[in-house]
């Protein structure tokens, strides 16, 4: 154990942080948009759409993400001429695109289930109250159902985001040099697995610590009605505003 070596390693691994953050951010945002779309379809009246989404969720939740990455990266590489004919090869040639696609599709499957649960957790009374005020369809969804659902899913979705940050480490298996990729390279050069992985683990911990604080902040900001106020007069005002 050499503290100086760990520090040097830590600095070398920091160069992989932007790549890790880019992979996590893009896939979480793309996955979230897709998840919302899928969740709405999952709860729609169209039986075919419900089945298709259920099959998608089953496939992507049920198989390992590493297998999904390999399927998209090496598997589709086998069909180069077909993809070229479809003008898609430009995208699939790039390892970043392949990993982003796999990560986004995977998190969308989990996110779909989380958002579906959130939407279903909105109580019938609240929807009823919305209808009583004359809202219906999209307006009701936008003003009542979605905001309440979002508030309910923030802690669970936060969990999924943290899992995604850790899942980016799989990108190293297809030549992308993010934190884990650089760590593997340093280990092969120095044979000091403990120090290097300890430093890599510490960086993931730091990223996720910041992320957890952010999620907690969003959670707090979205639920003022659950906070005990120091000023009783305003409590009544807040209650009146949210109910």
């Amino acid at each position, binding site marked *: 154990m050499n503290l100086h070596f760990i520090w040097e390693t830590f600095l070398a691994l920091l160069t992989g942080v932007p790549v890790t953050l880019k992979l996590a951010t893009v896939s979480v945002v793309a996955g979230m948009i897709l998840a919302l779309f899928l969740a709405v379809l999952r709860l729609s009246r169209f039986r075919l759409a419900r089945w298709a989404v259920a099959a998608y969720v089953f496939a992507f939740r049920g198989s390992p993400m590493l297998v999904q990455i390999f399927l998209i990266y*090496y598997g589709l*590489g086998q069909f180069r001429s077909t993809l070229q004919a479809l003008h898609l*090869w430009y995208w699939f*040639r790039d*390892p970043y695109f392949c990993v982003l696609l796999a990560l986004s599709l995977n998190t969308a499957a989990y996110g779909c289930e989380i958002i579906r649960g959130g939407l279903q957790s909105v109580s019938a009374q609240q929807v009823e109250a919305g209808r009583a005020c004359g809202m219906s369809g999209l307006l009701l969804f936008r003003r009542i159902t979605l905001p309440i659902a979002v508030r309910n899913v923030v802690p669970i979705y936060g969990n999924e985001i943290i899992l995604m940050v850790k899942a980016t480490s799989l990108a190293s*298996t297809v*030549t992308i040099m993010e934190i884990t990729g650089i760590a*593997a*390279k340093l280990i092969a050069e120095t044979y000091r697995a403990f120090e290097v992985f300890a430093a890599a683990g510490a960086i993931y911990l730091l990223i996720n610590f910041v992320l957890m604080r952010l999620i907690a902040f969003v959670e707090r900001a979205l639920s003022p009605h659950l906070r005990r106020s120091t000023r009783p007069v305003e409590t009544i005002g807040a209650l009146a505003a949210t109910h």
Partner: protein
Amino acid sequence: MRYSSILSSAVIAVALAASAIPAPAQEQVVKIATEGSYAPWNFTEGGTLKGFDIDLAIDLCARAKLKCEILPQAWDGIIPALNAGKYDAIIAAMGITAKRQEAIAFSIPYARARNGFFAAKNSDLAKLPETGQSFDLGTNADGAKAVIEKMRPLLKGKVIGVQGSTTNSAFLEQYFKDGVEVRQYKSTEEQELDLLSGRVDAIVQSNISLATTKKNKQFDNYDILGPTFLGGPFGTGVGIGLRKDDTKLKATLDKSVKEAIDDGTVKRLAQKWFAVDVTPLAQD
């Protein structure tokens, strides 16, 4: 406790027995160890040892008029057993490295792999100069540098695949860092898949392992384009491992190896076992 003491006394007994064997001072039989499981260098087939190392060992012994006995030995502990006098030489595709030279001596290299850019014959890289020529990055640094400068503009913007943490990746890092995008792979199979799919324009590998790759029909249209390199980060080659104090055997074998290189025996055996040339260059 009991078991471990039994075990340690057994180890001591073996060690005593080993040291009790008289050194083969006047005996004419030279015992040569090989690994026997590293095809096509040395391997066991139907109970007999075969391969490039075995053929060469037989040839060298005949040249030096030595009576030789070749025996298989596990790779782990192959160096300590040499120093303990269990045998007199190791011919087992052993690369000459500084770390090993701390423990044992080596003959002059009897084989040196060439390393080059493997790419599709109809690609841009077909324009690379000096195809078929080999440059030593150590002893012919200026010549190698000149040819690398000629290659640089042709490789600009290309994506090159390489197995991570190998002499090949060290070579790319040292000589082609600018202008080339290097992708590191965990295994040679993965980088070969990406060469076929066109994600990388070329891969850097030794001619010995590429000869195995080329046996696959999918690589019919691929070849090493441009010059090949050895020395420098690739090391000084493969030699015969010998005890440091056995200078007499080293002198004998050095002479035989040189003769075998000069009269084309090494080249012929390399063609037979590797289908490519691994003869050390003339200036070695």
